[in-house]
């Protein structure tokens, strides 16, 4: 195993993951808000934010799909050492991580069942840019409306139409993140 796989985890897992989770929760509860997050140092090409989310939420119970360029030996070794999460294809993933183009098509991921809509994939989308501009968002967690730079709008409108089924998204860029749950309407 390469030495790089052993570094880049939390120094103080209990408190660092608590802080990181609060940022993720704030993002998911208030779609469109951009949160700072740090603690993890994953191998390239994963961003600090994407790596920290994985460290915070993943373990042996959560199959992870590494999409496209995110699927490197370094990332596999790092994820295995720090989380123990099993790797899987998109159809069984609880979490999927990668660039937007690599994660497509979205039809491959479980969207939950009518009786268990929570059994759906959370996609961690590593983006080149993340800004509070672009698409307009409305829905639970948003007072009137919010704006967020999304890779596209049609996919998220189609995802909203599946509610209460559907996918949930975390957008990461550097050490910042935002989220778009299935409940958010995108214009």
């Amino acid at each position, binding site marked *: 195993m390469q030495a790089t796989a052993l570094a880049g985890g939390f120094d103080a897992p209990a408190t660092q993951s608590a802080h990181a989770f609060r940022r993720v929760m704030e993002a998911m509860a*208030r779609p469109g808000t951009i949160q700072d997050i740090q603690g993890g140092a994953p191998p390239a090409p994963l961003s600090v934010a994407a790596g920290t989310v994985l460290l915070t939420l993943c*373990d042996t119970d959560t199959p992870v799909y590494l999409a496209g360029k995110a699927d490197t030996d370094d990332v596999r070794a790092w994820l295995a050492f720090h989380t123990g999460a099993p790797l899987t294809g998109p159809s069984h993933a609880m979490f999927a991580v990668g660039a937007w183009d690599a994660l497509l098509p979205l039809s491959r991921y479980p969207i939950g069942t009518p009786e268990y809509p929570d059994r759906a994939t959370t996609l961690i989308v590593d983006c080149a840019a993340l800004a509070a501009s672009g698409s307009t968002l409305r829905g639970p967690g948003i007072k009137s409306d919010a704006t967020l730079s999304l890779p596209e709008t049609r996919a998220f409108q189609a995802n909203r139409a599946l509610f209460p089924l559907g996918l949930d998204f975390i957008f990461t860029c550097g050490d910042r993140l935002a989220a778009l749950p299935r409940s958010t309407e995108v214009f």
Partner: protein
Amino acid sequence: MTDHAYNFAYLDEQTKRMIRRAILKALAIPGYQVPFASREMPMPYGWGTGGVQVSAAVLTPDDTFKVIDQGADDTTNAVSIRSFFERTAGVATTTATIEASVIQTRHRIPEAPLTEDQILVYQVPIPEPLRFLEPRESETRKMHSLEEYGLMHVKLYEDISRHGHIATSYAYPVKVEGRYVMDPSPIPKFDNPKLGDMAAIQLFGAGREQRIYALPPYTEVVSLDFEDHPFEAPKADQLCGLCGAEDSYLDEVITDDTGGRLFCCSDTDYCEGRRKAGHRGPAFPGNEAAA
């Protein structure tokens, strides 16, 4: 010694990750009850094990924690949960609503409006609003998936036909974002109007029943009713005997063996705050003569 023998906030990290994943899905599907693998806690079921597990999963060392039981900071349940997290998480605690960043509550929403920087964690005994109408989990799950809530309206209608009004006074069912019918936990229906459009995140934890659900901020929450019997949020037609508040939810306290009684704010912090500001009710010591 024991205090340092525990992981931060008592639970192990894998358990917290599992609860945190459930909380995120609960926020993504407002009002839907997410199953989670509830752990045994060092307190009996019914004492807030669900709320405690949710609090343990969201607390950070920087938080200021408040616990209320029926609005009061000084009852057994509130005191013991507060000291539990003082010892296992080392967090600061307070009884002042405005100073708290995480508030765990049993059966009340504080009178003071909550802010975007706060999280409200409810202790929930029975999370399933349809449970007393349909005991089978397999059936209630199907009813939620099909949005089949006619039975709940029949129940409220039977209230009207028997009592002349909707007699359900607590755990009054609500519909979230026009989709899921949700049990707001046994808060008095006086508190129901505060559920919707709240600035704070609301998380609900049911330990024995192993369910977590949530309301993101500014979520639409509608108390079920009928056009000709609209929802009302009543309270005792009295004012607080201690602070004189007319707008707060009141407890009735029996004070002697001859039928003497006192109405006072159930929210102790709200009542103390008003008394500190000089407000006096008719039963306040030294003020009885005026009453």
